């Protein structure tokens, strides 16, 4: 592999902690294989930094297979980089070429403050979920099997599509308004489409939208950027559904 890889220049946001003001720093990595994932390339950089006694670049990651939503990074001006339908851990270095300069920044939004380097605090998403992203089920020992409730194929499919949102925050990072509406739209939709979600439907959408506003996310201008950058292909239709749900909750 050696000698055939790419030599890259990396411009990376470095920030000591939440209180510090960060800045962009430039690094060089050599001999990067096109088969590496973007995070593996970051590992190479970090080993290099550690070997030279420098502080490695902090970044979020966990599953490294596109399901947990932890990895973030704004790469060359796009959330999760230039590829479509992938998280950063699924982004391959073959998307880049020898000699490239790659700009790597944390996800930006007032509601996603930087903790360190490329790590941002996305607990605002968790608080939105806690505000209504659940159903109340009797768990006293005679819990009904969900399969006992008939659901149309169409609704089940759409609910499943909405439920594939991994809460990564790429939609917010991408949105010029830092709006969380794709995420919240998906979370509202996954219940709105199912009978189990009906009981708390009105309160759910009202409370989740209220929490979203409280966290300081922006308003949707329907640019559609979120849908393009979402690794799970969550559809803008979910935002429309959330808006309908909120209108319904209002007249209820």
């Amino acid at each position, binding site marked *: 592999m050696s000698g055939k890889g790419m030599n890259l220049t990396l411009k990376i*946001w470095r920030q000591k902690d939440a209180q510090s003001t960060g800045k962009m720093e430039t690094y060089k990595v050599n001999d990067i294989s096109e088969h590496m994932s973007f995070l593996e390339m970051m590992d190479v950089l970090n080993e290099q930094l550690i070997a030279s006694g420098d502080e490695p670049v902090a970044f979020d990651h966990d599953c490294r297979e596109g399901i947990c939503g932890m990895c973030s990074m704004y790469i060359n*001006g796009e959330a999760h980089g230039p590829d479509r339908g992938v998280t950063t851990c699924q982004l391959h270095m073959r998307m880049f070429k020898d000699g490239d300069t790659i700009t790597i*920044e944390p996800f930006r939004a007032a509601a996603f403050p930087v903790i360190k380097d490329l790590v941002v605090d996305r607990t605002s998403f968790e608080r939105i979920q806690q505000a209504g992203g659940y159903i109340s089920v009797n768990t006293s020992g005679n819990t009904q099997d969900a399969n006992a409730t008939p659901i149309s194929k169409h609704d089940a499919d759409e609910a499943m599509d909405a439920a594939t949102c991994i809460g990564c925050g790429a939609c917010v990072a991408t949105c010029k308004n830092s709006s969380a509406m794709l995420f919240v739209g998906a979370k509202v939709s996954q219940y709105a489409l199912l009978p189990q979600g009906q009981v708390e439907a009105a309160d759910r959408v009202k409370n989740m*939208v209220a929490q979203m506003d409280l966290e300081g996310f922006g308003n949707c*201008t*329907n640019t559609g950027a979120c849908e393009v950058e979402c690794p799970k292909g969550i559809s803008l239709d979910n935002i429309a559904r959330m808006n309908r749900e909120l209108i319904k909750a209002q007249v209820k």
Partner: protein
Amino acid sequence: MSGFLKSSIGRKIAMALSAFFLMFFLLQHFAINMLSVFSPEAFNEVSYFMGNNPLVQYGLQPVLLFGVIFHFVMGFILEIKNKKAQGVAYAKNNGAANSSWVSRNMIYTGVTILLFMIFHFNDFWVPEIVEKYVEGKSQVGKDFHAHVAHMFENPIRVVVYVLAFVFLALHLLHGFTSAFQSMGGTAGRKKVLQNIGKAYSIIIPLGFIIIAIYHHFNHH
């Protein structure tokens, strides 16, 4: 209802409602202006009616003014809130990779329209109001058509109008379908409505442009 307007989505729905109203008004304004090209007599008659019918003057006109003011004030409120929601600006941001220029610049096309509207009101609406309600003059038999033709003798005015309508077209190229989405409809994402939106956004402003140019070259 006031609580509804405090919610991000409530504001967006109100924004879309005001936008639908403005797009409907624009159609009506367009139809009347077209008369000035095809039939000066009919144009004069309709202009007199619109300017002097109490239902239009005291019923529809205030609604229109409210609609316009509501739309741009809400536009500014949303813009301020959205700016506040942003964190530190990206060193590198590739907006063109995932969204259209028109969708990202509604505030700028909107502000251009607002500046034009101030100019336009000063051209036609303010003199009308002064004539009718300050000077108390009767408009019976007034040649509205001649006034319009006279106004467009000035090439600078023609250029201003043409440019303003280009910006309106850009505003509508995103706004038309966006308004359906804000209202919770998915129709705006279907090809049919996207095409209707494109047609509306191009034909109507282009029509206004043609009317302005027509009067420039056909004043007597």
